[in-house]
């Protein structure tokens, strides 16, 4: 029995210790000074990330900063600072700070806003306010009280009164909802952070180059995107005005949607956005090539023939027909794997591969080089050669494919923030306490009150109310 009791006591002690630690943590986060420190720290550290260029290859840091500093940069994650653990930790602290402060301050505020009516108050209260006034009006207290009520109502105040027998106590209020502005703003910040977190876990960003006429399958979704056309608009001066792609969504084998996209005008389909992000000329295919026959004993080739990509074309004046099957913008040959590839996307050494047929029979599959005509014979053991004279490249359009389900949460957050700002900065909570007393032949009015911000407005309003009450003698 005593053992058990001891155990229980120990447990209670541990619990108490946890509770004490918990309340210490809670107390730590329930502090405006912490808010100030975090905000100023965030402001200062954010500067580093703008001075040190972000997400460069490590070699660039080495050449810019030297080995020693690069080590420091990598250690502190300054190369990707805004996603580093410590920057995230600072943001998390700010979020915790906001949550704790809201929990601590909002419920009592809410209660006092609901039960705010206090027309029974100590008369000494009035003189404690910075904004207070005492003046007398030559009229009976009941009439003066009515005037006070109508003056405040005219200014859109709510007002209640109690008393009688020559003494009235009144309480007037306006703009209570403005008090909720700061809470709305704080919640909106949490929403924006939440949206960013959702986006970083559930979203992705991808890039695809699509050839004109080609298509891409969208990852993890049941639809494809086809590029019908790509073109560039120019100003009269020759400067680029806009990049445009005409794209079609193909779902289940059917074309469901066609849209022209350009920079600033993405396609949005089933939660995924497609952005015009770059363009270029393909390195592994062309629209058409100009090919000509050349007799081996002649210097000049014959008339060029336009050969389209993957289409069989007869070469007039010969038994041959040709098909354009491969292209390499910057021809290179890998001996190990026996394959042709392109060293770069630039047309430094353009080459096309043809399939040459004699009737039905495939006789040769030569590579022809634009810059080195005739270095390899196109058809072995023949008087006829072929040369590659010109080509029309295939344009591709570079599209960013982007899914970010967090974006809508962020936008919701910004809308809440907008309302929060309107309430916090432009709706002021005003409270005024008033006593109307009979002082023999006239009445004395005492009033005083507070506004949560913008004292200018309040001073002016009170002045106007006092004028209205004291001026309107004998209606």
């Amino acid at each position: 029995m005593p053992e058990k009791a001891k155990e229980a006591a120990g447990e209670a002690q541990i619990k108490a210790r946890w509770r004490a630690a918990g309340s210490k943590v809670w107390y730590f986060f329930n502090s405006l000074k912490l808010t100030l420190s975090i905000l100023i720290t965030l402001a200062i550290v954010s500067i580093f990330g703008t001075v040190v260029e972000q997400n460069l290859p490590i070699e660039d840091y080495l050449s810019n900063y030297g080995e020693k500093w690069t080590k420091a940069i990598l250690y502190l994650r300054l190369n990707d600072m805004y996603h580093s653990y410590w920057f995230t930790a600072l943001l998390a602290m700010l979020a915790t700070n906001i949550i704790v402060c809201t929990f601590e301050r909002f419920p009592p505020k809410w209660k006092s806003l609901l039960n705010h009516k206090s027309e029974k108050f100590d008369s000494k209260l009035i003189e404690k306010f910075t904004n207070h006034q005492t003046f007398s009006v030559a009229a009976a207290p009941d009439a003066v009280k009515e005037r006070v009520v109508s003056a405040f109502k005219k200014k859109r105040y709510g007002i209640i009164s109690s008393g009688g027998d020559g003494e009235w106590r009144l309480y007037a209020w306006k703009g209570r909802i403005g008090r909720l502005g700061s809470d709305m703003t704080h919640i909106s910040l949490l929403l924006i952070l939440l949206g960013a977190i959702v986006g970083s876990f559930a979203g992705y960003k991808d890039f695809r180059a699509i050839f004109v006429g080609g298509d891409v399958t969208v990852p993890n979704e049941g639809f494809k995107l086809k590029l019908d056309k790509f073109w560039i608009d120019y100003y009269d001066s020759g400067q680029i005005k806009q990049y445009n792609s005409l794209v079609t969504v193909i779902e289940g084998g059917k074309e469901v949607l066609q849209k022209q996209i350009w920079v600033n005008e993405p396609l949005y389909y089933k939660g995924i956005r497609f952005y015009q992000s770059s363009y270029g000329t393909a390195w592994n295919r062309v629209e058409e090539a100009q090919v000509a026959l050349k007799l081996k004993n002649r210097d000049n080739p014959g008339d060029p023939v336009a050969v389209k990509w993957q289409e069989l074309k007869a070469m007039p004046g010969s038994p041959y027909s040709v098909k354009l099957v491969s292209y390499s913008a910057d021809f290179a040959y890998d001996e190990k794997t026996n394959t042709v590839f392109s060293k770069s996307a630039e047309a430094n050494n353009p080459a096309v591969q043809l399939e040459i047929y004699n009737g039905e029979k495939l006789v040769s599959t030569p590579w022809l080089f634009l810059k080195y005509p005739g270095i390899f014979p196109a058809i072995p053991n023949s008087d006829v050669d072929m040369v590659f004279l010109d080509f029309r490249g295939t344009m591709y359009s570079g599209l960013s494919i982007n899914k970010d389900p967090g974006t809508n949460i962020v936008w919701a957050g910004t809308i809440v923030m907008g309302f929060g700002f309107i309430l916090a900065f432009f709706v002021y909570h005003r409270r005024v306490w008033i006593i109307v007393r009979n002082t023999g032949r006239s009445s004395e009015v005492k009033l005083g009150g507070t506004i949560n911000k913008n004292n200018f407005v309040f001073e002016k309003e009170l002045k106007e109310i006092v004028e209205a009450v004291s001026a309107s003698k004998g209606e």
Partner: protein
Amino acid sequence: MILSLVFFTFSFAFYFITAVLYMGHWIFRKKWLGQTATAFAFVALMSTTMVLVARAGESGHAPFSNLYESMVLFIWATNAGYLLMEFKHKFKAIGAVVMTIELLSMLAASLLPYRFKSVEPLNPALQNKWHWMMDLLSPWGFEKYAIGWLDFHVFTTFIGYAGFAIAFGLSLIYLVKNRSEQKGGRSIMDAFPDAKTIDELSYRSIAWGFPFLAVGIVSGAVWANYAWGSYWSWDPKETWSLITWFIYAAYLHARVTRGWRGKRAAYLSIAGFLAVVFLYWGVSFVLPGLHAYA
């Protein structure tokens, strides 16, 4: 180019006269000097408006697309904001400081190298118009006058900057005034309202600047999401706008905390405006990024 330049030159002269008149009013305390100063401030505002209008006519788009144009917008917004404040609160001496800021801004804008001034057609990323507005205007054939996120983003941001600029001027006044109040006796600072009022005015300016900067940042994010596919990419301009926003957020919270009002708040407001200056000019000249053009 010519017409806007003419108006710009006139504006420069008007701001010079306005600043001198306000200073005269501050030092000699003559009522007529103050009234003339206000009249000239208004004339300068009209003239600045004409610079923007002429510029829009010359370039065929809203005049918010390079550093020079945005400087004119900044000057316009600061002047408009100041005149509203003067109209509401009738403290004229403050004009001496605000109009000096205006004059310096005019000087800075006029000294900009040519490539920041020239009228350029909009590059692909800057072409953004609201479809609903184009649809609304198209029955009259006015759809080319529709505005978009670019215009909204720049405009709201610069209202924010203007609020901060005025708050900066007021914070400077506060620090000097606070000192002279503590010393007591007569001083040249007597022309200004008392330190507490200055502090409150400074807060009011930031209370306008802060939400407008926020709207500017958010509209920039919305636009970036259309143009580049992400609403936030930690571009130096974006980051600096956030830094500025953090500093002013600290200012607003500092006012609620005891011991942080007055002097410390004034220092925060000054730090905030220095961040704005860097955000606006420093980032454009020193740090590379998406906003390199303005």
